[in-house]
């Protein structure tokens, strides 16, 4: 188990490194000229050269990357070319927003997809049809469209929940919950659809298994049979799908944050990306990929805990 964990962590670090390098290369080697954008079209060539030197852009690519990497390892992600703000501290401010909606969406997806998937597998019939329909809708309606509809209908027309803005957890727990409910819900629709479908499929398979019949022949309660035995055996496959869906949740946050006017890492990615603000883009990419890696390792651990063949064998 320890070996397994170490291997996963190393693989995760390699992933972050590869993505960071590729991003840096893409941002650094392409034709766009960020310095001209920063100093403005009217600036003299002298000003451009000076700014270039100030940002270290006159140095060769490999040297620049080496500096960035050395600083990044020490927790310093540089500062924005445009605002001059430290990337590390601005990410620290924005990470809670994104984490709140993404993790809430993950939690909602896990709970709702389990409930829906188990219910569909056990009851079949009409409920099963509803879950199948939801699966198609979840696939067909992108999260930002769901977000738009939620914002207009629930946020604006009905006024039940705020349509914009974020309340930090430290300020007010209730306000925080209200502010992340719509974003997290709209983000999770797709993940719920895909995962509920998988939960249903694995539950149907498990309920057909010989050992479930034998457990029934022992007269154990239906509740124990479904939730202790069958769900336990159906969970690993569902967890694999949920882990894949989480990657989509992180990506979806970028769009959903825009709809709900949340100042998180996603909206930062959009603005920095369109400006060509390399240090901010790098910081955002590294944090997002690291988030995916960490959650995936946690899911792997849960998978190992659920599956004795992985744990013991």
């Amino acid at each position, binding site marked *: 188990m320890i070996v397994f964990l170490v291997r996963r962590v190393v693989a995760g670090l390699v992933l972050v490194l590869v993505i960071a390098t590729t991003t840096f290369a*893409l941002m650094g080697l392409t034709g766009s000229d960020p310095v001209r954008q920063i100093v403005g079209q009217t600036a003299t060539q002298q000003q451009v050269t000076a700014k270039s030197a100030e940002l270290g852009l006159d140095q060769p690519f490999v040297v620049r990357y080496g500096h960035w990497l050395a600083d990044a390892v020490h927790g310093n992600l540089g500062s924005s070319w445009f605002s001059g703000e430290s990337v590390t501290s601005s990410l620290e401010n924005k990470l809670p927003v994104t984490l709140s909606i993404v993790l809430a969406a993950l939690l909602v997806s896990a709970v709702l997809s389990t409930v829906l998937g188990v219910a569909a597998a056990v009851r079949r019939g009409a409920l099963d049809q509803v879950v199948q329909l939801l699966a198609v809708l979840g696939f067909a309606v992108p999260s930002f469209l769901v977000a738009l509809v939620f914002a207009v209908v629930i946020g604006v027309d009905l006024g039940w929940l705020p349509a914009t803005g974020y309340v930090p957890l430290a300020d007010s727990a209730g306000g925080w919950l209200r502010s992340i409910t719509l974003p997290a819900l709209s983000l999770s629709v797709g993940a719920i659809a895909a995962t509920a479908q998988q939960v249903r499929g694995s539950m149907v398979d498990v309920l057909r298994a010989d050992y479930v019949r034998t457990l029934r022949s022992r007269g154990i309660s239906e509740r124990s049979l479904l939730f202790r035995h069958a769900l336990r055996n159906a969970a690993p496959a569902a967890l694999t799908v949920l882990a894949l869906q989480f990657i989509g949740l992180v990506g979806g946050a970028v769009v959903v944050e825009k709809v709900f006017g949340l100042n998180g890492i996603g909206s930062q990615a959009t603005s920095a990306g*369109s400006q060509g603000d390399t240090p901010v883009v790098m910081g955002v990419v590294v944090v997002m990929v690291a988030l995916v890696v960490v959650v995936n390792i946690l899911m792997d651990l849960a998978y190992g805990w659920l599956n004795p063949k992985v744990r013991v064998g």
Partner: protein
Amino acid sequence: MKLPDSDDTTGAVAPAVAAQGRAGILRRLLRNPVAVTCLVLLALISLASLFAPLLTSQDPARSSLTDSLAPMSGKHPLGGDGVGRDVLARLLYGGRTSLLGALLAVAVAVVIGVPAGLVAGYYRKWFDAVSSWVSNLLMAVPAIIVLLVVMSAVGQNTYLAMAVFGVLMSPGVFRLIRASVISVREELYVDAARVSGLTDARIIRRHILPVVQAPTIIQAAQMLGLGIVIQSGLEFLGLGSATQASWGSMLNDAFGNIYTKPELMVWPGLALAVTVAAFGLLGNALRDALDGTAVTGRKPSRGATTRKPGAEKKAPPVISEAQDTDDALLVLEGLTVSYPTAQGEKTVVDGVCLTVRRGEVLGLVGESGSGKSQTAFAILGLLPREAQVATTRLEFDGTELGRLGRAAMNRYRGHRIAYVPQEPMSNLDPSFRIGAQLVEPVRRHLGLSAAEARTKTLGLLERVGISDPERVFRAYPHQISGGMAQRVLIAGAVSCEPDLLIADEPTTALDVTVQAEVLDLMRSLQSERNMGVILVTHDFGVVADLCDRVTVMQTGAVVESAPVDQLFADPQHPYTRMLLASTLEDAEPRSALSLSRTVSASAAGAVGIAGTTDPAGVTNSAGITNTGRQEGPA
């Protein structure tokens, strides 16, 4: 009893697909109304965007401030957007961007994924390792982040972004193709082709490409939907070619006017959802069409006999003793089990009657498909849910089981009626330690504390001949052998001291040496506890060894029932004689006897056994039919 799985959602490969004609698949697809609707919708959307210039005279990019947020009118059939551009024109031209972009992405994904998957799956070695690593890497990155980076580095170009998205989707294609190739590669006919000296290129073209074709097409349909979704997401963020009309940029504009004119969302949102849903549903329908078994192969057909209305009258079974039910532990009368199928109702058990006395071992004998296992499961209430079960009498120790609810039945199951399955390894829950599985029913039925239940279970494990009960108690099922697993299952069955044990071919899956030991164990447990036993078997050796009485079944009905000595000495029914003869020749009966039961009627009539019960007669005279609750696999 493993039913074919038609609920597979992972796009599994069906090698049989290659054998089916493409025409057949297309015909099946066109018979599916959902598929036809999707095809028609997609055709309409494609044609509308293709012929956009004919459908509207408006320029999708021309803005006019006077038409800003214009209502629907002759000039603007769907109104104007935030900067006065025509909504209809943008919707039609936007379809071009979405469809072309998605096609581009899918083309890139297929062009990269298919060859890489073929090579990695066929040759394996270093290329497989490297490409699998790259594919895992690509899959771990949120696509939209990569696209943001690319767009900011290279420039705002929708088609470029979609090409890059194609690269990001290629791992999905790669993994699918690779898995398909690996599974086909092991097939005998591919081996044969290799041995006969065909070149790799030829083998791939002739044997492997046809197999991967179908799953690739299914996946392509779904990737088209995904491509449209991600593209509209980017455009919604304001990324992508600024001058090009697109559904995503329309939504962006609608978002800007969300407080003044939220209905701008409706048209692009609808177009997006309908198109993507159509691609998704089309993919599903394609899978169903290719996976022909999904429609026909669902119901168990093992040994089923189709009940024909007005079929020849059945011969009465040969029952060689009075049905004296006074000291009976279990009385089953008029059991009928049938399954609904596309061809009508299939009856697998037809009017079976049997009796087990306290402490008596009844052998239930017949060839595969004679309905003996179905009978055993019906008594336990464990047949699949779609099974239609009716009995006129199912009495256990004076209680009619047929009318019990689930909770009441659960007080009998495991406690007073127990079950030993056929296949030991698949009958233990793989996720729980053996101890936990044995302790749970003991605590529930006998109300023992955890410590008491543990002590009792360890004792049981020792009793069934496990030399190291502590270790087995802590082990998971995958850590013990098949013979040991069967001992564990027997321990579990007798743990609550049942009065009746139903054993379904308990030794068939075991090695010959282990078989004898398990039979010894069952015999000693039976005499020690004076249990009634129903021993389902096809082996007359086992019958001679253990049983007091034998009931012989053929194609769902009882043909003969007699004390074991009498049956061996003087079998009355030709089918029994045939079974006995085949056992003596040391060969198992292979196929259903062609001799129909009608022929045997004369034999039965000639013998003229007292106490003969006509199942049909019982049904009529008793006048009740219990439809028992069945809780087997759904």
